[in-house]
């Protein structure tokens, strides 16, 4: 498939402003949506609009069918059973759900929750708050200077009083993978529950719940070509069955009496209130988009662009690149222009319609550990091309002089 062909699926990438197209390098924040996803959402509102699981008339049945189809699509996408797929608003909510239900129920004073230093705040703060509430200890797995979390680090920190081991599959800042196999094995050994944040992996690679061997998996539709406002939590059936509900309200009950209630069976037990069937329709379309292109093609294209970006950026004397270069990385490259604050860099790039993120990327402890306050991040998806990298580099060369600095 040509670059232009892939790009043409994404209307926003084709939109010209001042005669130039955007170079979108912020897919780790949210991806662009292909036309078919946008159409599916709009088609829901045009043709099937009703509250799912509420009415008995045709439109309501349609809305239910659309919503539940997204669940079965998601289940087959990650090799799970549909009843173990809980729809939330986003990956953050999915992780909070686990912290506030399984965590609140099972964590005791003196227990340990272990996470990695690479976590996005979404997979850090729920655990930090839980630990504070329970008098438990929050322990970090650190990387060595080669950006690896060693077996030794894991064996030392994942102790027998560890109840939860939560880690990101792929880092949203460094683009590197956690040692999933070792972590899940170790967790099983000590009897800890594993929560894997797949928000940054599933846009780039196949995630299969059985292969991964985790207890909970969280991700967001909006980072994988789907709509905003829809997240996924997959959980191991026994755990989902025994946990108490998270939010309560409409549709998540079996029976309500004045002073107590019983809960609906899975997955409804965790889906209080009116859900977003339009987003679900869009998500089904996003999943079939990924399947049509295929993770092989996605991976191949992204790797080619990633490798090209590293090679070109390494050649720019004004740019400082962070992270390792001898291990496989996915999606994100952190960098700075020397002596320039990342916010200024992003502003200068934006004048050329080059979109990069600048800041702490919701991973302040990681940046601190890297000795940084903030940095720029270019992140890639299937629609990026080498030409995008060229435009990034061209724009980066203007940054220092725009800020009144000479060459380095």
């Amino acid at each position, binding site marked *: 498939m040509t670059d232009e062909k892939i790009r043409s699926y994404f209307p926003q990438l084709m939109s010209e402003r001042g005669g130039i197209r955007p170079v979108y390098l912020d897919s780790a924040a949210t991806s662009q949506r292909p036309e078919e996803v946008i159409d599916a959402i709009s088609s829901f509102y045009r043709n099937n609009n009703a509250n799912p699981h509420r009415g008995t008339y045709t439109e309501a049945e349609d809305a239910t069918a659309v919503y539940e189809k997204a669940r079965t699509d998601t289940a087959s996408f990650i090799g799970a059973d549909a009843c173990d797929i809980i729809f939330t608003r986003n990956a953050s909510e999915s992780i909070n759900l686990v912290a506030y239900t399984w965590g609140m129920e099972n964590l005791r004073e003196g227990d340990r929750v272990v996470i990695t230093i690479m976590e996005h705040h979404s997979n850090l703060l729920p655990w930090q708050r839980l630990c504070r509430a329970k008098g438990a200890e929050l322990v970090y797995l650190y990387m060595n200077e080669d950006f690896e979390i060693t077996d030794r680090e894991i064996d030392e920190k994942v102790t027998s009083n560890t109840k939860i081991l939560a880690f990101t599959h792929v880092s949203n800042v460094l683009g590197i993978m956690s040692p999933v196999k070792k972590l899940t094995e170790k967790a099983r050994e000590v009897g800890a529950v594993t929560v894997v944040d797949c928000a940054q992996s599933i846009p780039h690679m196949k995630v299969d719940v059985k292969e991964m061997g985790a207890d909970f998996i969280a991700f967001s539709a909006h980072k994988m070509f789907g709509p905003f406002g829809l997240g996924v939590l997959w959980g191991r059936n026994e755990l989902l069955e025994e946990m108490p509900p998270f939010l309560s309200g409409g549709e998540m009950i079996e029976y309500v009496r004045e002073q107590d209630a019983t809960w609906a069976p899975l997955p409804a037990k965790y889906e209080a209130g009116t859900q977003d069937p339009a987003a679900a329709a869009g998500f089904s379309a996003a999943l079939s988009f990924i399947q049509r292109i295929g993770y092989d093609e996605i991976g191949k294209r992204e790797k080619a662009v990633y490798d090209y970006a590293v090679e070109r950026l390494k050649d720019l004397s004004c740019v400082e690149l962070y992270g390792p270069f001898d291990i496989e990385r996915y999606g994100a490259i952190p960098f700075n222009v020397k002596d*320039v*604050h*990342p*916010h*200024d860099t992003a*502003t*200068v790039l*934006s*004048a050329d319609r080059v979109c990069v993120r*600048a*800041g*702490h990327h919701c991973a302040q402890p990681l940046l601190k550990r890297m000795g940084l*306050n*903030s940095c720029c991040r270019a992140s890639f998806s299937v629609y990026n091309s080498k030409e995008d990298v060229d435009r990034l580099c061209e724009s980066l060369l203007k940054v220092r002089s*725009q*800020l*009144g*600095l000479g060459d380095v």
Partner: protein
Amino acid sequence: MELDEIYTQVITENSRSKEHRYQMQAPSVVKEGVNPSCGDEITLQLELDGNVIKDAAFIGDGCAISQASANIMIDLIKGKTTEEAKRLSGIFTGMIKGDVTGEDELDELEDAQAFQGISHMPSRVKCAVLGWHTLDEALKGVSEQQ
């Protein structure tokens, strides 16, 4: 977007200026300000003599806009009374919001007028006002004490 209207020489030079960027010996007031979204930080230090800002300095880390704005602000408020400083702060935020456009008022801001272009860039407004906002907070503490 016209970058040259934002990254003017006044701003780029002030962003790197060391003139007011140091740790003061015995400041009467110290106030920290941050922009959580972009991570700009400044610590403003004031030495007060009665209601006169006898001396002022800052330390900070952040984008060119935030650091230049803090430096230029200190140029302006040194030697002024706290009331005058507050009034200038009002004019500055008014200019950024686009509410203050009168030439006489703007002239009082001297070099700080260079930030007028930022009002077109909502994502950078916070950077430009960080120093002034921190000043307001610092002076609030002072008037409560008095």
